[in-house]
């Protein structure tokens, strides 16, 4: 650069010497604008991750074996009690531990005591809830999404109707997530049919249909706030992503496979099943893992439909069973009971501890710990999808 900035060489004897400094300066300036914009993103990401890791990791990890805060992963959120005994030592205990401690130490007088909601215990409940919601969502979304993608790509012929369907899918992708939440509330929680007894009937008129010859009713009264409703809502939300991604992976399969299979006397479904789907599967898998990462972090769709801030029991605990019904009936009611349990969920839990309780230094560990765990989980899933894609790309080449 130095020899160029030297004005002496800006003369006509050297034909390729830079004629004006200004053009060079503009060039450098522009390149720095672009560079800084890119570095800015890096800085933001680094700050976010750094802050969460610095403040969250100490909550999750321990210096001595087993190196992990086991309690954080094996207990559900509870109220944190912070109290000071007469001798001036300050203790922090989850509410249930506190009751136990008071029983064990009846003589000790407590000087100061204050509580912080949701800040004690661990995050088992939300973790389980999010896992279940995501699994339900992805199963439903994959079933419907893949079927739709196969129909659109393999069976449908081009026409107006198909364009309308595509438009609908595109619009579905544009609906804000809170609208999905309300839609799920209206449809799944308050309208979808259940079979119920007269005592639990909450609707009347045409929405309550007595099943012939029994005491039961087919009632359009919804499933209530439960993980099935939440999973379905999330599934509807993620459908456009899944459909588009599945369709792309189907489109990537060479036409030659289909033609060769058909020319050998295969039916259309045989062709799709044996010469298209197996090769489109990796792409679909990647898409669904990406879909999982998307829905796992959604708060709005589940806050009306599935999630509770506080819940003592895990969803499979304490399911009501009618002892008089037969084995099959018990199984059925248990399965249905399980899916119609409400759950805690990570995003909603984070929202609760971050925005709905008074903030203090005692609530920090739960806040940062939850965010840290959740972030690591979602990042692992993203990494998994990238890994799967690379792995199958290598394996499936043609």
């Amino acid at each position, binding site marked *: 650069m130095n020899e160029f900035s030297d004005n002496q060489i800006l003369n006509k004897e050297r034909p390729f010497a830079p004629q004006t400094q200004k053009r060079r300066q503009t060039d450098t300036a522009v390149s720095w604008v672009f560079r800084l914009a890119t570095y800015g993103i890096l800085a933001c990401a680094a700050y976010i991750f750094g802050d969460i890791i610095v403040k969250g990791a100490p909550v999750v990890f321990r210096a001595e074996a087993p190196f992990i805060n086991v309690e954080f992963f094996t207990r559900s959120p509870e109220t944190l009690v912070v109290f000071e005994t007469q001798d001036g030592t300050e203790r922090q205990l989850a509410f249930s531990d506190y009751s136990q401690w008071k029983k064990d130490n009846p003589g000790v007088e407590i000087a100061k005591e204050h509580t912080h909601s949701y800040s004690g215990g661990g995050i088992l409940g939300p973790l389980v809830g999010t896992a279940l919601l995501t699994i339900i969502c992805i199963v439903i979304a994959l079933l419907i999404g893949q079927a739709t993608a196969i129909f659109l790509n393999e069976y449908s012929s081009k026409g107006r109707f198909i364009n309308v369907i595509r438009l609908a899918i595109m619009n579905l992708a544009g609906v804000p997530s809170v609208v999905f939440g309300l839609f799920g509330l209206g449809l799944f929680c308050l309208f979808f049919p259940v079979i119920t007894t007269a005592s639990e009937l909450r609707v009347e008129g045409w929405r309550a249909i007595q099943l012939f010859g029994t005491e039961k009713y087919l009632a359009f009264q919804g499933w209530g706030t439960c993980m099935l409703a939440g999973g379905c809502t999330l599934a509807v939300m993620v459908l456009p992503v899944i459909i588009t991604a599945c369709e792309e992976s189907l489109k990537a399969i060479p036409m030659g496979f289909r033609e060769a299979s*058909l020319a050998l006397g295969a039916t259309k479904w045989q062709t799709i099943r044996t010469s298209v789907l197996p090769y489109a599967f990796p792409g679909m898998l990647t898409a669904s893992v990406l879909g999982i990462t998307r829905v796992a972090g959604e708060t709005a769709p589940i806050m009306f439909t599935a999630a509770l801030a506080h819940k003592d029991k895990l969803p499979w605990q304490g399911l009501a069973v009618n002892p008089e019904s037969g084995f099959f009936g018990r199984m059925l009611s248990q399965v249905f009971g399980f899916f119609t349990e409400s759950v805690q969920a990570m995003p909603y839990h984070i929202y609760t501890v971050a925005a709905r309780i008074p903030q203090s230094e005692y609530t920090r560990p739960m806040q940062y710990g939850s965010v840290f765990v959740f972030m690591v989980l979602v990042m692992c899933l993203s990494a998994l999808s990238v890994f799967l894609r690379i792995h199958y790309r290598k394996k*499936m080449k043609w």
Partner: protein
Amino acid sequence: MSSSKVLMPTEENISPPAPESSAVTSSHESSQEETEKVIKVNDLNFAYDGKKDVLRDISLEIQGGEVTAFIGPSGCGKSTLLRCFNRMNDLIPTASITKGSIEILGTDIYDQYVDEIELRKHVGMVFQKYNPFPKSIYENVAYGLRIQGIKDKATLDQSVEESLIGAGLWEEVKDRLDASGLGLSGGQQQRLCIARTIAVQPKIILMDEPCSALDPISTATVEDLITQLKSKFTIVIVTHNMQQATRVSDKTAFFYLGELIEYDSTTRLFGSPAVKQTEDYISGRFG
């Protein structure tokens, strides 16, 4: 240009002795007396969009046990006609024949009682771009039988071996049947596709420019194979390569702009074409 290289007079070559050792199925050997018309096209018109005919007034009869070549410049409709024979054009929703009929083995294949799935078992097809499935060599050949529901290992083994022998590929791949079909060379992949096709034991094999993606040596191998195969199968081959037509075919049909210009024995069509357009095309004046 290459008319002096014309190989064989037709009639003598139709019925070669079928050797016992080869992979012929017995049903084909008895078909010597039925050297009648295997494919019969009657006054056919075909349109992709239902309006504009890309094939017009095509009538021709294809003899059993022969290799028939379709030649002509790009877009003349020769591939379209070929794909009518196993109803591959059905994949295009708007495409249909607009006039006439095609009879294969005496049956109108566009009749409402004809199932194109069944038809394709009898009329196999080899494509321009070799397209083995990304499966093992064995599974590629067994595919056609598997989709017909054949599960018996011995039957499959035997069929795979016979088909690979029939396609002249057995010696090259018999030690690595479990290796991916995509690991083979281009010519081998195309012969694998031919093996896959003959495993279903069709009566007719349609070949849509089978050598256009191959190098000259692989092309020669595939051409040899075609001449061997015609003892067991009726072969219709679309080709851009006129020398190839003279080397492998007994009869040649010349198409131009959707019409059948001339159809004759290869010797006569290349030696003394009756139509001026044919002569211009084969002598390289256009096309």
